[in-house]
């Protein structure tokens, strides 16, 4: 009897081990590496966005790959790219060779992303960019498709489109200056940090502003360091130049310093452009409220870009205490990746690339599609009234509100529910009306 029981036990164990249906080991996962500067807010937002999406997808069962449903396993990878490009390259190598991730999302600093893009593509790993705007990353795809086809940009739009977007916002502010202040000849000063994207935007502005007409004048270009701690001299010079509008580009900490001193000194010029720090919830406190009326290009606000935007925005704020910024686009990236994997029915990178190229996804940031392989910058995020538009946001009494596309629908009839009118700072109005 005892021998019989032992034999039965052994047979049962063998059956459990050998028969696939009886295996009780951990389910195989899809490993997605989230790579970014994790001790900085940009990396934190990479992680938060990806984690929210992964949790939602896993709660719904996971990703269907052929006949198997597989959960997502996120791997957090600190690239330290803000401080060190070599660190980023090393982190990418480790993610692929040691952590053995299947896909990658993230990246922030252009120089680092270019290096990481090379490593990911050499290893035929799909890398969905969620932070760097350099168009070069996509022109590489056109120049050497077989190598770079694994790269896709999910957020933000590329740097040339950022310039175009900034000009549309500038145009809106110029109209307000003319309407409210009665000033016909509008003077513009550029205050833009010395950085690669800043160089491109300055070159574009110096070419385009004089072409905007006789009644618009560029009166000065100021280029503080991205890490400058004091820009009072620059702001004094802007005031002395008689500028009515300051067009900005700040990706670094100088954006906080600038806005704080601009507000405290009540420099009589409206400020509009790109100020990455002004996209964050901590901006109001970091500037002691002096950042009021600062206006910046943005990806998210609590408006209806699509029906997914407000639920995403609210959940993100509730879970993290932060506003989502563009690096939180990892949220949409994971859903786009999920859909492509499910359509491909495999984790094979080449097959998933083909499906990613067919993407049409209504995400939290808008209708998301990638530029075709026929363009000079394939796999870039498409921009336009029918796609992702990006938005302009302005701080108004402690709230970050959408002010572009304008509430009157003057840009291609696009108006997002929740948009408000742009406001000139009251000290600007007082100064110029007293003149």
């Amino acid at each position, binding site marked *: 009897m005892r021998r019989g029981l032992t034999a039965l036990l052994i047979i049962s164990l063998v059956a459990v081990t050998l028969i696939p249906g009886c295996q009780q080991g951990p389910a195989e996962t899809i490993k997605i590496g989230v790579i970014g500067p994790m001790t900085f807010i940009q990396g934190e937002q990479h992680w938060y966005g990806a984690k929210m999406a992964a949790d939602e997808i896993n709660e719904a069962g996971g990703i269907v790959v052929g006949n198997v449903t597989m959960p997502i396993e996120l791997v957090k990878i600190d690239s330290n790219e803000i401080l060190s490009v070599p660190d980023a390259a090393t982190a990418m190598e480790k993610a692929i060779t040691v952590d053995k991730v299947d896909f990658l999302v993230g990246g922030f600093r252009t120089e680092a992303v270019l290096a990481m893009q090379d490593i990911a593509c050499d290893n035929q790993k799909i890398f969905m960019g969620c932070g760097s705007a350099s168009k070069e990353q996509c022109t590489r795809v056109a120049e050497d498709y077989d190598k770079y086809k694994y790269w896709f940009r999910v957020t933000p739009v590329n740097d040339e489109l950022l310039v175009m977007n900034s000009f549309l916002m500038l145009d809106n502010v110029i109209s307000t200056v003319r309407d409210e202040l009665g000033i016909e000849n509008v003077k513009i000063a550029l205050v833009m940090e010395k950085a690669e994207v800043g160089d491109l935007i300055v070159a574009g502005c110096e070419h385009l502003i004089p072409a905007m007409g006789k009644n618009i004048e560029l009166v000065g*270009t100021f280029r503080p360091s991205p890490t400058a701690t004091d820009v009072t*001299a620059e*702001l*004094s010079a802007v005031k002395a130049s008689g500028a009515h509008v300051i067009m900005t580009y700040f990706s670094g900490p100088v954006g906080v310093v600038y806005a704080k001193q601009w507000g405290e000194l009540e420099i009589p010029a409206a400020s509009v452009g790109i100020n990455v720090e002004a996209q964050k919830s901590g901006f109001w*406190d970091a500037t*002691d409220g002096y950042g009021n009326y600062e206006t910046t290009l943005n990806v998210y606000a609590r408006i209806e870009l699509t029906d997914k935007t407000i639920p995403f925005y609210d959940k993100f704020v509730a879970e993290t205490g932060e506003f989502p910024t563009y690096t939180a686009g990892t949220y949409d990236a994971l859903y786009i990746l999920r859909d492509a994997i499910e359509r491909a029915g495999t984790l094979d990178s080449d097959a998933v690339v083909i499906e990613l190229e067919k993407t049409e996804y209504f995400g939290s940031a808008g209708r998301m599609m990638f530029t075709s392989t026929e363009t000079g910058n394939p796999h870039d995020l498409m921009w336009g009234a029918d796609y992702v538009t990006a938005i302009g946001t302005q701080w108004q009494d402690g709230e970050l509100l959408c002010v572009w596309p304008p509430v009157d629908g003057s840009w291609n009839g696009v108006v997002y529910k929740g948009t408000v009118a742009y406001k000139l700072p009251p000290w600007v109005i007082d100064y110029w009306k007293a003149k």
Partner: protein
Amino acid sequence: MFANILINGAITAGIYALLALGFSLIFGVAKIINLAHTAFYMLAAYFIFTFAYYLGLNAPLSATASIIITTAIGVGTYKLVIERIREHETAVLMITIALALVFQESILLAFGSHFRSAPGFISGHVELLGVSVSIQHILTFGVVLACLLGIWILLSKTKLGIAIRAVAQDREIANLVGINVGTMCLITTAIAVALAAVAGAMVAPIWTIQPHMWMRPLVVVLAVVVLGGLGSLKGSFVAAFILGYTVTLVVFLFPTVSFVKEAVALAIMVAVLLIRPEGLFGVAFEEERL
């Protein structure tokens, strides 16, 4: 433009001088090149932020508590680490830079890399000769003058100051006449760190608070004290004005390259040092100091 340069140059110089004062003092007396000086400035700024935003204290109370705690940390660090290797200048350099990095990483762990703001003593701005100047900037300039006056009175009019100067001039002789050299160095360290904390209280509300905020001011401080002459308080003050006006001139005269303003200031420092290696007010003999 003249008024802009005049006022903005003075304001910038005031900030530079306040940051450099303690660094210059501790080198002048204890011969310690404390590369962690601006890290104490950072610590003070974070303490102010913590007291103001987490404990709800007002700006003067936050600043006072911050100065006391930062000074205590500075004194503790001196007793635990620096005092033992005080005679080895290279080791002091390495240890103090390591300390600064330890402080930075600790802050990064505790607060993350988010930008913060310290409450100012006073907000708003005034118009001086048509130039907008924040009142906190003017207050900072006043505090610089008060600190300089206070240090001058301490060193030249009090017994403690005379003892500190005696140690600065000749430690062995000072020891022979009964002055406790170690205590004098400790007191000087406390004063220097307190000055760094005062700088944190005054300058942090003007700039922003973040874990790497000590690096850039350290370069400015080094430039100021080297140009002025290591250990010379008067030299530091004059050098702060030279560099303050240089960076302001670069912004107004060459706005498209204003990012090089500090590099130009450093180039001027190098040029002066080539002509006068000991700096503008550097001393060949300790008796000349002050």
